[in-house]
């Protein structure tokens, strides 16, 4: 009986104490006709050894391709210590720290996390995590609608160069509350939010403007100007940032005259492995003014009966377990362990280390762009400055090119043609600090051959007149 410690003797003694003959008698309040039989379609149990072999085969099947996809999930070096510490049983198998005295480890760590996040984003306060970047944005939108006292609107301005899935997720989560997301075009030259388009909304009643930094194209926005514009128009400014980029970019809290009001994003670059998309974590920071509108757990530093510093969940009156239908969000379980990893990760990297990672990623993407655009017909689509991603246009069908590269174990980038058909055969590429010069050369060489073979094929079919 895996994971069940009962001996036959224990079982008999326990049944005798309860006063029943069989365990099945304990289910006698369940109407008989509802009882189910064997779960035959589930295979019988496996030993850990058998399962290890199965999982190893599965893991091997997926190969370990050389990957130039970013698009919201980035492969960074994670110090070995991070996950060795994070998976210590005391962190890994604790519950949400409801009993503060028996959870000071997790609580202090979360407070440290909040401290680091406010330093990184330049905001006043941080919560202790949300599910992921996309749902964090949805929460930020809900929060903005609640918080913007100047506006009666339930409309939000969303740039089209924001991650397409973030737009979808936000819509899924907020639309039942009659919140409307209004899309703002991007400038087809720079890749930035189109300022002229934006002017059309001047003076109108919108609850907030979302400002991605960088945006989905990797391009950097004029965050100061956009923030000031939002504030001038009675909107809150919601920053959606790559937290690694924050180590070298102007932090959201310092954007424009007053700073962004809310800053959220995907925490994955801070120590979470790619892991097929999760678990990652969403972060959410805001100004002091908005703290009572925040969703999610918040940890406060306080003192115990002896005046000794200690940590506890605080402002719980915002939360579902107290406020139920009036809570700021339904979130309960969050992504605590990921934040544990992120805190350890950022502590090990330090400011200097994080900045170097950011700079190396920026530089490598520059090298990659240079290498690929050296190929005939490959060109950079936007001319705005980027952080560590770049949109490139290929001289052949993007999906075919990517498929051919994948067959050679190179994942060449993210195909933009579904989400941005207007860009043609465009792909989004990324090279973080872990990419070496020879990786770039590997990609360039393979792309060159793929292009050559695809460009030639139709030629050969041309009638020879």
């Amino acid at each position, binding site marked *: 009986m895996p994971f069940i410690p009962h001996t036959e003797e224990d079982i008999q003694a326990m049944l005798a104490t309860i006063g029943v003959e069989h365990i099945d008698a304990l289910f006698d309040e*369940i109407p008989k006709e509802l009882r189910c039989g*064997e779960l*035959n379609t589930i295979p019988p149990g496996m030993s850990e050894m058998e399962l290890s072999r199965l999982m190893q085969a599965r893991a091997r099947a997926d190969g370990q391709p050389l990957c130039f996809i970013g698009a919201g999930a980035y492969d960074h070096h994670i*110090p070995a210590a991070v996950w060795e510490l994070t998976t210590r049983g005391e962190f890994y198998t604790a519950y*949400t720290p409801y009993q503060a005295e028996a959870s000071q480890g997790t609580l202090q760590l979360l407070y440290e996390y909040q401290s680091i996040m406010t330093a990184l984003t330049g905001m006043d306060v941080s919560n202790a995590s949300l599910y992921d970047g996309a749902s964090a944005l949805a929460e930020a939108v809900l929060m903005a609608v609640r918080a913007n006292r100047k506006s009666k609107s339930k409309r939000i301005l969303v740039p089209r160069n924001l991650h397409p899935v973030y737009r979808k997720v936000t819509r*899924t989560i907020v639309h*039942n509350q009659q919140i409307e997301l209004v899309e703002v075009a991007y400038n087809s030259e720079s890749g930035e939010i189109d300022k002229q388009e934006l002017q059309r909304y001047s003076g109108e009643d919108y609850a907030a403007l979302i400002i991605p930094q960088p945006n989905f194209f990797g391009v950097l926005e004029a965050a100061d100007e956009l923030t000031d514009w939002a504030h001038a128009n009675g909107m809150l400014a919601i920053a959606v940032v790559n937290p690694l980029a924050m180590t070298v970019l102007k932090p959201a809290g310092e954007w424009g005259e007053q700073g962004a009001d809310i800053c959220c994003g995907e925490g994955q670059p801070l120590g979470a492995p790619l892991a097929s998309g999760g678990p990652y974590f969403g972060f959410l920071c805001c100004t002091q003014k908005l703290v009572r509108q925040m969703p999610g757990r918040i940890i406060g530093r306080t003192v115990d009966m002896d005046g000794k510093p200690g940590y506890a969940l605080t402002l719980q009156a915002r939360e579902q377990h107290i406020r139920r239908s009036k809570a700021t969000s339904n979130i309960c379980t969050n992504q605590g362990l990921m934040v544990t990893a992120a805190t350890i990760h*950022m502590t090990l990297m330090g400011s200097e280390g994080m900045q170097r990672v950011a700079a190396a990623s920026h530089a490598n993407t520059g090298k990659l762009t240079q290498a690929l655009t050296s190929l005939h017909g490959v060109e950079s689509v936007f001319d705005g400055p980027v952080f560590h991603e770049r949109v490139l246009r290929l001289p052949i069908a993007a999906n075919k090119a990517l498929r051919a590269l994948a067959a050679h174990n190179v*994942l060449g980038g993210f195909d933009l043609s579904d989400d941005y058909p207007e860009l043609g055969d465009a792909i989004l590429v990324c090279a973080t600090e872990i990419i070496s010069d020879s990786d770039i050369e590997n990609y360039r060489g393979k792309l060159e051959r793929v292009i050559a073979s695809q460009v030639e094929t139709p030629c050969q079919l041309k009638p020879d007149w």
Partner: protein
Amino acid sequence: MIYEHSRKGRRATAQAPREQADLSGIPSALRRETQPRLPEVSEMQAVRHFTRLSQKNFSIDTHFYPLGSCTMKYNPRACNTLASLPGLIGRHPLAPETHSQGFMACLFELQEILKTVTGMHAVSLTPAAGAQGEFAGVAMIRAYHDARGDTERSEILVPDAAHGTNPASAVMCGYKTREIPTGSDGDIDVDALKSALGPQAAGIMLTNPSTVGVFERRIKEIAELVHAAGGLLYYDGANLNAILGKVRPGDMGFDVIHMNLHKTFSTPHGGGGPGAGPVGVSQRLEPYLPVPMVDMDGGDYRWLTEKDRPASIGRLSAFAGNAGVLLRAYVYARLLGREGMHRVAEFSTLNANYLLKRLMEAGFDAAYPERRASHEFILTLKRQAKELGVNTMDFAKRMLDYGVHAPTTYFPLLVPECLLVEPTESEAKEELDNFVEIMASIKQEAETQPELVIQAPHTMPVRRLDDVRAARELDLAWRGDE
């Protein structure tokens, strides 16, 4: 505090790229002027700090943790190891299907397993936790009514014993909530339910066994009533552990459910998460399931997306939910196998009933003494609070001194001075006996030296904390010597 070890210029050098690359491609107006104030410590200082911090936690791996409604059972270490194999941990979420068959096979099979144990028609794994599962479920209920043009339904019914996420999720879906009282036997008040049903009621959210730890015996009747009134039934799967392989929500008549894999399928709680809250639905709700899901096509796995499911409520996260948690749950499910599933319900129920019986014998009051416990049960310390002036919180805190995590306190709200106790199937009889002894000792202390209990804990890294100060003089981030 990690910042207390921080010194300007101190670094864990091996971790950073050896050089600072050129950032001149970024206009200086967009750059930050000062380094963010992160801790600056050596690698050893970090390791030592966080190792020592970890030791200040109670956890399943160190303590009995009978936290009701949370299913704090053993989290097999293999789940972590196998979910972290290089090919899996390094897979980019947007890797093409050709490079994802191993991963997708696990997800597909997990979907199938969850369908079987719940009796539902289809499952989507994407919700990141129970509450997001609830959101997805209620959103599907709304989508279903909307699709039928039945747009007047504006309420979700919720028992007064429901977990806070239930009403909160309903509200996030744009519904109002109406509370249904619980009867004195722990079952829902069916008459109250009847009068709440009507054309305005979109559905009801139930937990079964309920949050008071008993099986809702009239569930079939309830289902019929709700369905007859045009509503749908939502099943909160937080307590699925109690009935795994015994009775299935699908067979009880539920239309949509969520599961907490971080409870029933033993993925770790990680000090607050991550979890995974897959949703299962009956056939009529299938079109609305959140995407992505995994389909199998002649032996090949492929993603089901918005294109395949145009009526889907959409996406809930940037990729495919908490994939790593799903893998852990998959490993757990395969380790258990079909026969292991039944046993989860059997032994968690055996443990709860045994512990309840022993505690009653030791002089404690069950909230529902006539009822069978499910995998958990409620004690009420009302009598002790009144007679001895020692309340549930005091008992809970004193328990920490005895090396046991406290059960859930003051939830559900309808039972005064309650302790919700869930021992789980992975605890041995000795551990339960020890718990009884501890409770008895605390009771005796409460009788003879109540201050000892009221002032507890005495042996933790801190004593009771000043929550009022925490909320009034907000200190939410370290500001250093500013």
